[in-house]
């Protein structure tokens, strides 16, 4: 079991957890993720490691509640535990000195892009960070974003904070203004990443996107996370999660991510109907120790 040493809300439905996981903390590199399971009947879900502290033996993750598992996770508080965490999984981001790098991230994607942005900055890149959110209360980690970048733009869909518009609007402005862009990293909803790819691919700007396909084991054993790159099938958990945007078939990714939509909605609804009870049940199970269902 993995103890939560700090839990705090950082935005609307977005929570940050610092968790004891010494092995993972020692090995983590930017761009990698963990897979966790909350209880004996729970599913395994992937979450990016935002940062790690090898000395304290902790990793930090940021979670947006969108379905049953993430909603239950976000009910947990400092002092609670998580049953299973495995990692660090996936290939680390490629860190090089490209020159000028534009990072585009949407709400929780900001937390996912931060470690790579930091590392790219440390490698000598000029970082332009464009953070997007639906509205002011979903803008997260602004201070850290500013610290990880040389120029920062905040975009909101409703204009309630920063500038009005999507992150791609800002990217378009940068491109139109003739700025030299050597590398782009986009992390966020699939339509956003696809829009970025459509803008940068014709210009030949090397662009990486972090693909959030549905995963089970995270070790290459099931192939459920497979994504289509050109004609080639790749496993996002071991070959990714970052891929060259110009190769990615985003339509297939979107189509595969809807595979369980009906079940997920039903399971979220059922969870919301008796949240308190399920949280209590989870805590009781964890308190009883590692019980394995047979």
């Amino acid at each position, binding site marked *: 079991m993995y103890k939560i040493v700090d839990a705090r809300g950082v935005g609307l439905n977005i929570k940050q957890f610092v968790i004891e996981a010494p092995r993972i903390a020692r090995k983590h590199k930017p761009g990698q993720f963990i897979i966790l399971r909350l209880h004996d009947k729970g599913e395994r879900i992937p979450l990016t490691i935002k940062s790690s502290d090898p000395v304290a033996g902790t990793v930090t993750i940021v979670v947006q509640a969108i379905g049953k598992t993430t909603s239950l996770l976000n009910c947990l508080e400092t002092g609670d535990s998580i049953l299973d965490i495995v990692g660090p999984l996936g290939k680390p981001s490629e860190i090089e000195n490209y020159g000028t790098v534009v990072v585009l991230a949407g709400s929780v994607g900001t937390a996912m892009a931060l470690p790579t942005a930091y590392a790219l900055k440390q490698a000598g890149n000029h970082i332009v960070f464009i953070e997007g959110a639906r509205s002011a209360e979903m803008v997260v980690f602004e201070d850290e974003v500013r610290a990880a970048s040389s120029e920062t733009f905040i975009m909101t869909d409703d204009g309630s904070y920063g500038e009005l518009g999507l992150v791609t609007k800002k990217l378009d402005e940068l491109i139109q203004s003739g700025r030299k862009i050597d590398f782009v990293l986009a992390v966020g909803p699939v339509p956003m990443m696809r829009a970025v790819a459509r803008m940068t691919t014709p210009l030949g700007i090397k662009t990486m996107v972090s693909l959030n396909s549905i995963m*089970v084991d995270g070790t290459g054993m099931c192939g459920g996370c497979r994504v289509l790159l050109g004609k080639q099938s790749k496993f996002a958990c071991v070959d990714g999660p970052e891929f060259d945007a110009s190769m990615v078939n985003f339509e297939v990714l979107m189509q595969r991510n809807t595979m369980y939509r009906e079940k997920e909605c039903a399971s979220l609804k059922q969870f919301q109907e008796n949240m308190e009870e399920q949280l209590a049940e989870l805590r009781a199970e964890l308190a009883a120790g590692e019980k394995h269902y047979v």
Partner: protein
Amino acid sequence: MSEKSPLPRSAMNVLPLKERMKILRRHMPELDPLVRSRNFAEVNLGLNVLDAVTEASRCIECAKPGCVVDCPVGVQIKTIVALIHAGDYLAAAAKLREDNALPAITGRVCPQENQCEGGCILGKKGAPVAIGNLERFVADFERESGQLGLPANAPKTGKSVAIVGSGPAGLSAAGDLVQKGHRVRVFEALHELGGVLVYGIPEFRLPKSIVKGEVDNLRRMGVEFETNVVVGKSVTLDELMQEEHYDAVFVATGAGLPVFLNVPGEHFNGVYSANEFLTRVNLMRAYNSEFDEPVYDCRDKDVIVVGGGNTAMDAVRTARRLGARTATLVYRRSEAEMPARKEEVKHAREEGIEFHLLTNPVEFLGDEKGWLTGARCVRMDLSEPDESGRRRPVEIKGSEFVLPANVAIIGVGTTANPLIQSTTPDLATNKWNYIVADEKTLRTSKPGVFAGGDIVTGGATVILAMGAGRKAAASIHEYLTSGEW
């Protein structure tokens, strides 16, 4: 192998050989196909004492028992059968454990027809002695008696061994090594222990409680387990040896990487690898609506499974149990070439699985929303035998047809799990990325590191993996004692 009879004369089988040969092979009692194809309960119910003893009395006690010769690990079957006949089941179990660390498991899943029972002389004319069923009988008897004699461990040697992977190879090595007095810690990537035995082979063939029982025994013997560790990612082999001070490592990571057909349309929603399907159902228990994993509700769905081995057979029978309207096996050769256990093929047919033999999918078809609607298939013909000795299937021109399907499961094989090899440059591998290990000592190219089971041989069997685990244990013990690489 000549064996002195362990029995007093009075307990020996006095029936004349001719009489013994008249006794019919005892049937394994099974759940009714109509009932079992709707649930996940174990299909085979196990022999009762009377049937077990009667079955044992069929053995004609060959001077050179073919069963022992054809057992991949040389289990002393003749002696064990005699002990069952004499009613000393616990002694039979102890004898069994001398060569086989996981008898309750292999008794259920070994392909006996190609091994012990294939070598039984009675099979030449009639039915061979039901050795697998007897093995299961004594192992279950021992477990249920609660008199499992866990052997005492040798005094502590001060050496420690890391085992990577908790499949049959890893578990068997762990048991032997801890008995020799070494400290043993098993690292497993998944959250549950047992490897394919828990995530692959379904409950209706191998109940999870049996695997758990074996793991608990090892725990009691002092084996330590750490789940959620992906060696190569969470910690490297070098770190295990240099920073965590393991004196030797046994790599038993299996061959779990799914192979797809690489035909168009494989990305449609509804196409799965058998590994994904079975993992979701077995490990994540998707058949139980109490669990969060998306339940593979196969009701009203046409499910096809591609392949002819145990994996494909397990997937298609699982789909049936999840309520599939039709559950069809598509295999490019004929039934004679199917690598699956014969009993599974028989059970599958009884459960209403349809077989499309000599058929191969060449493309998956989908609707505009990306959901699978069917598979375009061609009929095959068999030509000359290939390297594997099986007749090579060739397409029949113009024989294409569409098989409608909402779910397609690909169970055509697996390859090496890659994560250790890719982070251990000094570990020699062959061109398919399997780890190279010496046949006798299971030593790899990296000092202190041994490897065995499916990660060396490619997908094989539980008994071979178990045998490799024990061989590795002996070899590691020898290395730790001599200190010489």
